């Protein structure tokens, strides 16, 4: 469990522009020791620019970053010693084997030969890559590459881990394995800063979540607080096929306490703090000559909170909104 109030990462009024585009606009937050902090937003929202500034790959136009008491503006290399970074691309060295890549990264974190070889072997085992240790990185599958990149970031056993889209573009099984590893790190007290556009991933892993859209923080809160307004609500999605659809006002008059909306022309969503029986709804719609092809119950999730807070459809998060250059 994280230690609230014991700040590990402090970010104050961070700003970064590319030409006239403000990629990050006055962003402030702090992350406590041992916390898993999710930074959520669509592509182009400013997630990568923020993580680049935190890890020393980009310079803020203004603002302040302090990593575990080290000011990144004045001592960026000292701050880099404290962190492991998993970039959004699996950019280890294709000509080197998995083992050599890890040893190389260990050497760049000033590890001596024997400890880095031992740590590389340990991490390869932990990430299920022992059998591929002597294979060139170029020959790894996408999931294996991603695992090795995470292992590389952990070579010097950092207290803080930055992950930029750790499960993007890999198969379900590998993504599940990576989430399991992150949960293990969390249990061991590693502070994790995670950027992702997979809301389900953030919901599963994070203690607190920040929503960033167009460079600005829209909301920052604990997962519990974010989900509280939607917890206990029941949602029913009715597929009405291509038949005529009744108006929302008419439905809400007929069924007080229910909220009706259309997520597509044929999908009617019913929300209520009480359980929603299907029969009265289906019966009423049938009396209007509208057939219900399918009825599905759904639990409200962080997806829905994100949509409410940002006004951006969750489908845009998953498919990716058009990017904005570096952001």
């Amino acid at each position, binding site marked *: 469990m994280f230690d609230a109030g014991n700040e590990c990462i402090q970010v104050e009024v961070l700003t970064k522009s590319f030409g006239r585009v403000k990629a990050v606009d006055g962003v402030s937050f702090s992350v406590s020791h041992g916390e898993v902090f999710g930074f959520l937003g669509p592509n182009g929202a400013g997630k990568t620019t923020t993580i680049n500034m935190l890890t020393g790959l980009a310079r803020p136009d203004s603002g302040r970053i302090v990593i575990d008491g080290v000011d990144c503006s004045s001592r960026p290399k000292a701050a880099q010693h404290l962190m492991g970074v998993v970039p959004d691309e699996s950019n280890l060295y294709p*000509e080197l084997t998995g083992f050599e890549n890890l040893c190389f990264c260990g050497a760049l974190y000033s590890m001596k030969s024997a400890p880095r070889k031992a740590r590389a072997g340990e991490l390869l085992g932990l990430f299920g890559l022992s059998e591929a240790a002597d294979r060139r990185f170029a020959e790894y599958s996408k999931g294996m590459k991603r695992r090795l990149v995470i292992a590389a970031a952990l070579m010097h056993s950092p207290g803080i881990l930055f992950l930029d889209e750790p499960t993007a573009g890999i198969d379900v099984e590998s993504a599940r394995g990576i989430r399991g590893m992150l949960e293990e790190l969390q249990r061991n007290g590693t502070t994790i800063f995670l950027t992702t556009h997979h809301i389900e991933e953030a919901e599963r892993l994070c203690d607190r979540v920040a929503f960033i859209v167009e460079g600005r923080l829209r909301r920052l809160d604990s997962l519990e607080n974010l989900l509280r307004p939607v917890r206990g609500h029941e949602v029913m999605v009715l597929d009405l096929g291509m038949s005529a659809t009744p108006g929302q006002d008419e439905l809400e008059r007929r069924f007080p306490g229910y909220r009706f909306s259309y997520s597509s022309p044929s999908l009617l969503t019913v929300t209520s703090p009480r359980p929603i029986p299907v029969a009265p709804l289906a019966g009423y719609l049938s009396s209007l000559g509208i057939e219900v092809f399918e009825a599905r119950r759904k639990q409200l999730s962080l997806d829905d909170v994100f949509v409410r807070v940002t006004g951006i459809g969750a489908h845009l998060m998953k498919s990716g909104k058009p990017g904005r250059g570096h952001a």
Partner: protein
Amino acid sequence: MRNSLIAAWSIVLKDMKAYYLKPPNISWGLLFPLVWTGMFFVKTGREAGDIAGVLPGMVALSVLFGTTSMLAVTVTFERKAKAFERLLLFPVPLGVLVLAKTSGAIVFGMVNTLVPFAIALYLADLSMVSWGVVVPAVMLVAVVSTFLGLFVAVSVSEVFEAQTFSNFFRFPMIFLCGLFFPVQDLPSYLQPVSMILPLTYGVDLLHGAINGSAMFSPAFDVVMLLFFITLLFSLSLRSVHRRWIY
């Protein structure tokens, strides 16, 4: 300091494995100087004086093309593949990182000169050569050529741009830096251009050590080479800092 040395050595070893010891680069590093040297020596004949006359040019040419071509790959290509970006994430000072990335090219350039020297030694008596000056001269030429290649490599985004941009420097330098035609014999309006090109001083140092026909004193050549080395390295470092840590 010790940590920086461990990091730098690891980068050099990694680059050796990934680039310099690859069969295409070994063969290119041998073939290129072999063909040029063979061609010039055949044309020159077997007289020791003639061979000693063209040897500084052959050595400089081998170093210049070997180093600048490799930098386009080890720096520009790695940046394109975001592998250089990964290096910037490590707690290694930028200067150490860049020096480590260029060390492999410096050694590669120096090794390339073994071909013209080996052929010249086989064909002619080089007993008049001051080897004590030649070795540091070759090293200085390799360093200045590498940093010239680095300056080009960090100023562009694509490998082909690096190669093309390098040629704007490389080919004029073949004619303007005294490799095969003495600078003093160039038209007077071209001679000032020669003076602002770093290779002029490297080739002059080599001429002095190999055939005794230098324009300047060895001390002056060394000072000028050190000046260009410092200038090119500083400019490259500034460029990396401004353009890559954006």
